[in-house]
């Protein structure tokens, strides 16, 4: 059931340009613009040693894309609620939480596609992954897990509100969270107060865990902090989703 709902979710995204475009077009365009426009930042003395600004930016682009993937998945879930499809699934003899897991399975799959897309772009345009194939596999895993973690948080809001427009309204907040992390620039070069906030933003830990294998190689503490952040966010998101599912079922 989870696999079937997951496959439906991926197909739905592929068929609707308004859901697919934010995942690939916007992050890719932003990656190109920021790399071309701010690429000389690597000449700043405080910039960490990297092969290129593109290599530095890849992890940020992937995280941005999966945040949007989670949001797109939650919008689709809210649309299903608005159109009554979710109610029909809730009436079926299956676990109600499987409905949420199915949607998140689709989001996880989109996370894998996003990671492969950006790794391919990086390799085509000359950004090597210093950690090699193992590093690439780790990045794909982390991207997919991040998609599920953030997807579960937004899914909880979709289940609670049942409104696609409210979930769509979260789009700008995702960008605020992104800008207040190390997704686009080293924390030590950001301006205050963003720099201090970025230092403790869990998204920064996730980005760094994905960035290290690209720019220098695995870094134990960084990878661990990233993984723990993903697990923490997923735990909160899944718990809230579970509560929201039960609340929706109670309300009928």
């Amino acid at each position, binding site marked *: 059931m989870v696999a079937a709902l997951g496959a439906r979710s991926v197909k739905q995204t592929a068929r*609707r*340009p*308004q859901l697919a*475009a*934010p995942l690939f*077009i*916007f992050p890719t*365009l932003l990656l*190109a*613009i*920021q*790399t*071309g*426009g*701010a*690429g*000389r*930042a690597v*000449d*700043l003395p405080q910039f960490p040693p990297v092969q290129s600004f593109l290599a530095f930016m890849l992890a940020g682009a992937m995280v941005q894309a999966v945040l949007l993937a989670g949001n797109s998945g939650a919008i689709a879930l809210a649309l299903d609620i608005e159109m009554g499809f979710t109610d029909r699934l809730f009436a079926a003899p299956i676990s109600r939480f499987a409905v949420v897991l199915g949607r998140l399975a689709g989001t996880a799959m989109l996370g894998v596609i996003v990671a492969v897309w950006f790794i391919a772009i990086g390799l085509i345009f000359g950004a090597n992954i210093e950690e090699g194939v193992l590093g690439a596999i780790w990045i794909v895993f982390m991207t997919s897990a991040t998609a599920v973690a953030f997807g579960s948080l937004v899914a909880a809001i979709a289940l609670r509100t049942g409104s696609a427009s409210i979930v769509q309204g979260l789009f*700008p907040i995702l*960008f*605020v969270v*992104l*800008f*207040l992390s190390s997704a*686009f*620039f080293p924390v030590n*070069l*950001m*301006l205050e107060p*963003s*720099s201090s906030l970025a230092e403790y933003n869990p998204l920064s830990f996730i980005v760094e865990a994905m960035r290290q294998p690209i720019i220098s190689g695995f870094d134990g503490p960084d990878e661990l902090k990233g993984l723990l952040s993903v697990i923490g966010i997923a735990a909160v998101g899944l718990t809230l989703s579970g509560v929201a599912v039960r609340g929706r079922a109670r309300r009928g």
Partner: protein
Amino acid sequence: MGASADLATIRALIQRARNELLRVPGAAIPGVMAPSIFFLGLTSVFGNLTLLPGFTSESYQSFLVPVTLMQGAAFTGAATGVNLARDIEQGWFDRLLASPAPRPVILAGLVASAGLRALIPATFLLILAFAIGTHWPGFDGLAVALVIVMGMGIVAATWGTSLALKFKTQSAAPLMQAGMFVLVLFTTAYAPMDLLQDWLQAIATINPVTQVVEAARQGFVGEVTWAETWPGLLALLGLGVLFTALALRGMRRMTY
């Protein structure tokens, strides 16, 4: 129909757009919020780019603010296309086409409101920008920037309209926004021309919106001169003519 009837039609369509804004004020929020978040976010993230040798401004927010003004105008203009796509889906636009109003007059009514509406995000963004220390561009710099904002709103509206007439669905909205996003950001948006990567420098050199951004930027980073202003106005005129021609062709195709 005479000129007065044409003007009355344009006025009625502007009024309709204004009514939409008054009745659904939330519709203006994305056009205000997205560029504001980008402005604050990019300033805090890339603010230290001004330390690069050759950067033409000491204040990154002053360098960036015209870009966000263009983004706000572009989002607002593209919204005209989305609204038109909705009108086409609901059949309202067919009734408008069946009226005796000439096609260019209908188009003028649709896009003129976008020029005025573009001032909403611009006003908000300028208040925000001055609050965080953006240089005062002088009254001449401000006037040039606002004229360009209105022009950009109209250009974006003709672009959105031409796509709405081609695809006839609101699903084309990402294309309307992405097109403007590309035009505005593949310029000297993030850094001066000499500091861009070679490939982006090549694109920015031939992208007419670079001239538009530079014309709007001049007051914020230095003196306003006619030599920097006219290329921007000419670029807006050229883009406006091109997209208007596409939109009018779309209208003709819808009719016959």
